[in-house]
């Protein structure tokens, strides 16, 4: 069955068939014509059945040729495929790209053993082989290969640095690429979830070993006042108590040297503070089966301060705001070229700054709720407003402003964005009759405000990331160069807005934007990959007989095209020779 509706050309060509038939039927209908006498027409006359109303159409050969030609073109337009028998099958290899494949057992990693197996497999190379890297997302590698040298070249991309292996997704992709006809080989370090593999085209081979492993599964460094607070979480993925030494270094100085004793399959967290000025912190465990998860690097957290100018005429309010801003710890010491201006006037303050306009409390009404809060807004995060009395002028929203907080139909807090991307907030608030400033919601609101403003300023959002995640970068339109730990670099031409940087390798990344350089550290923190207890060696499933016949779909468009061409040539010849009957 040809799915005509999915082939508009075929549908159009098909529609021409009744049109052609109609043309011929109308053209070949019996035209009445008076003649002098039927005496000359008494020959070879078709017998007319008595009372018959339907007559067989006398259609010329050309009609049938045109009909056949159109039909052939219809079928050709539908892109027909024929299944042709093939004696051998192509191979699609799914490679586990997670970093657990790097675990070493008897001086050989699972990745190396899998590569050896592949090389032996290529002694009798399949007709064509494709590779799929099973990282957090399956990725198809280039074109099919036919020999080991080509395969070895492709396998250079198999680095095993992914924090996870989506093998099931990779198998699904392989089945789709192979049209359910190709053999699929999975090379990994663990067994399948279902021990019995029902797919006759799937073979699963594992080259891992159940090894004991101590790993760092969590690490962070956050701003904590004037200091940085570090968290390290170490897990013992073995069946017995393990003792290990943790070394924390800042540059060449030892910050901490701790002997850890962690029970079977237990975890231990270490939290400690270091001076904020400490540049790069490195924590490492003693080498074991998987060395990649024994080492983390933590850079100082991104501390963005916001330059705020408070331009309120009311001294009491100004003092209140200043105290609140200082309490957030996110305010910069200087207020030149402010990034946020808090004012009462209607005029815009600053050229590149956000503004918070404090509405003059004229005709104040006190609201005790309920308050309608846009919880998806960055300013609303953490606000509860329980028991709050909010005094505000009873007014309606000005055009273009989107309310964030409402009391009935009175906007208490609203925001709008201008053409330059600046945010302008309006706070309808009379502290004289309100209790908001005496509740935790008050500092939360201003902390949210400064945090939001800081997040919108150029630079990295974070300086430490997990392997495989994306690091967000706010750009100002300058070209960005990212240098990876393996010293390869990627240049992003002028970009504006947010840029998400991939982290395929662990280590230190440098981001060059104009004259400034930012760095961030990427650490392989993945508990599932560090847990080698489920790794094993073995084979599950096997391909059916290699010599069994299979069918491969081959396009047959050219056959129908050639046939249509032959029909058209015949049509032309008959027309030229006058033998077509019309």
């Amino acid at each position, binding site marked *: 069955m040809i799915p005509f509706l999915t082939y508009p050309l075929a549908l159009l060509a098909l529609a021409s068939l009744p049109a052609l038939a109609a043309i011929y039927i109308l*053209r*070949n*209908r*019996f*035209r*009445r*014509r*008076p*003649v*002098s*006498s*039927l*005496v*000359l*027409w*008494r*020959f*070879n*006359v*078709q017998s*007319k059945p008595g009372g018959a109303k339907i*007559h067989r159409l*006398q259609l010329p050969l050309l009609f049938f040729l045109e009909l056949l030609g159109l039909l052939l073109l219809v079928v050709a337009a539908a892109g027909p495929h024929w299944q042709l028998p093939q004696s051998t099958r192509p191979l699609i290899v799914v490679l586990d790209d997670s970093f657990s494949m790097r675990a070493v057992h008897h001086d050989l990693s699972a990745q190396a053993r899998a590569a050896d197996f592949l090389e032996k497999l290529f002694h009798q190379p399949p007709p064509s082989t494709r590779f799929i890297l099973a990282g957090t997302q399956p990725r198809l590698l280039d074109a099919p290969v036919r020999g080991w040298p080509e395969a070895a070249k492709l396998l250079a991309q198999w680095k095993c640095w992914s924090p996870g292996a989506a093998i099931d997704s990779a198998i699904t992709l392989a089945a789709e690429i192979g049209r359910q006809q190709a053999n699929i080989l999975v090379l990994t370090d663990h067994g399948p979830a279902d021990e019995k593999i029902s797919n006759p085209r799937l073979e699963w081979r594992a080259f891992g070993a159940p090894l004991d492993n101590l790993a760092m599964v969590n690490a962070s460094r956050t701003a904590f006042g004037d200091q940085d607070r570090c968290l390290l979480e170490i897990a013992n993925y073995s069946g017995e108590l393990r003792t290990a030494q943790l070394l924390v270094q800042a540059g060449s100085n030892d910050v901490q040297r701790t002997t850890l004793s962690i029970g079977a399959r237990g975890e231990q967290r270490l939290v400690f503070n270091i001076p904020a000025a400490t540049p790069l912190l490195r924590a490492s465990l003693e080498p074991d089966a998987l060395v990649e998860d024994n080492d983390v690097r933590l850079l100082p957290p991104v501390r963005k301060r916001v330059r705020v100018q408070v331009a309120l005429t009311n001294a009491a309010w100004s003092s209140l705001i200043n105290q609140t801003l200082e309490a957030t710890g996110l305010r910069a010491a200087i207020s030149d070229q402010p990034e946020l201006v808090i004012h009462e006037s209607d005029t815009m303050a600053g050229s590149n700054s956000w503004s918070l306009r404090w509405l003059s409390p004229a005709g104040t009404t006190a609201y005790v709720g309920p308050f309608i809060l846009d919880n998806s807004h960055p300013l609303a995060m953490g606000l509860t407003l329980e028991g709050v009395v909010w005094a505000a002028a009873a007014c309606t929203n000005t055009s273009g402003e989107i309310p964030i907080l409402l009391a009935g139909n009175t906007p208490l807090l609203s925001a709008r964005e201008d053409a330059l991307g600046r945010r302008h907030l309006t706070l309808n608030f009379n502290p004289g009759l309100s209790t908001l400033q005496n509740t935790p919601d008050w500092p939360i609101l201003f902390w949210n405000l400064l945090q939001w403003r800081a997040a919108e300023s150029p630079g990295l959002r974070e300086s430490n990331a997990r392997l495989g995640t994306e690091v967000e970068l706010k750009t100002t339109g300058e070209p960005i160069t990212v240098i990876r730990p393996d010293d390869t670099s990627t240049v992003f031409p002028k970009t504006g807005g947010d840029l998400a940087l991939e982290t395929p390798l662990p280590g230190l990344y440098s981001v060059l934007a104009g004259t400034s350089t930012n760095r961030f550290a990427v650490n392989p923190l993945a508990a599932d990959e560090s847990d080698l207890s489920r790794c094993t060696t073995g084979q599950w499933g096997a391909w059916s007989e290699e010599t069994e016949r299979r069918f491969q779909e081959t396009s047959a468009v050219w056959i129908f095209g050639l046939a249509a061409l032959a029909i058209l040539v015949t049509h032309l010849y008959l027309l030229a020779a006058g033998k077509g*009957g*019309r």
Partner: protein
Amino acid sequence: MDPAIRQALNHGERLGGRYALQIPQVAASGWTGSRSGRRTGSSIDFQDYREYEPGDDLRFIDWGIYARSDRLTVKLFREEVTPHLDLILDGSRSMNLENTAKAEAAAGIAALLAAAATNAQCTRSVWLSGEGFQRLPNDTSPSSAWDSLEFNSQRTPEQSYEILAPKFRRLGVRVLVSDLLWPGNPLPTLRRLRDGAAALFVIQLLGRDDVNPPEHGNLRAADCETGEEIEIYIDATVARQYAGNLARLQQSWADACRQCGARMTTLVAEELEQSLGELESIQLLAPA
């Protein structure tokens, strides 16, 4: 009468002014007229002498011969006759076929022959077939004065003859104008027409559509006289068969004409003026 036929009559009359009917010698008999007959008569043209017989008009005795030879001898003079043209028109509907000029051509030929007969000092009668043969009103007048010339009969001339035969004048020249498209043996028809005639001419008048049917396609052919219809798919073979049928029909009429001593020609209605030479070639007309 159809204005187109009236116009064709006028046109034929003008054309006929250039021709005169050729009268065969055998036809030089008839009513007393202005044309020399083949027998003795009362004209002033001397023809012969013969012995006087009782009853001869004494006014024609040549008294000079009696004085010289003492024998009564009478002078014989050629008679003066008026030859006659019987013009027989096929009044069937096929002579007024749609999309052809057959009716106008038939009227034109009739007017032309009438004018040519006048030029040849012939009298004429115009017979139109229909429910029997009827003389056309005012047929002795110039053709512009003719009336009721209509081709709407469902009967062939042969059938009309059976109903009411025309009263032809003996030894007249008879001309049949018809498309001759009816089945049957033409010989009996021709013999009846030829009987008592000095000469018989048959002019077959066909339309272009009669000669050249459509080349290809499905055709529902409707007989304009009987209304009978047949459906035919025309291709090259059928076209050849049609042409063969027409040729056989014409050949049968030509053979019958030969047997009866008649002369036949075929004209195409739409090419009438170019075909008038055919009427000269069968010695029906001569330049006036």
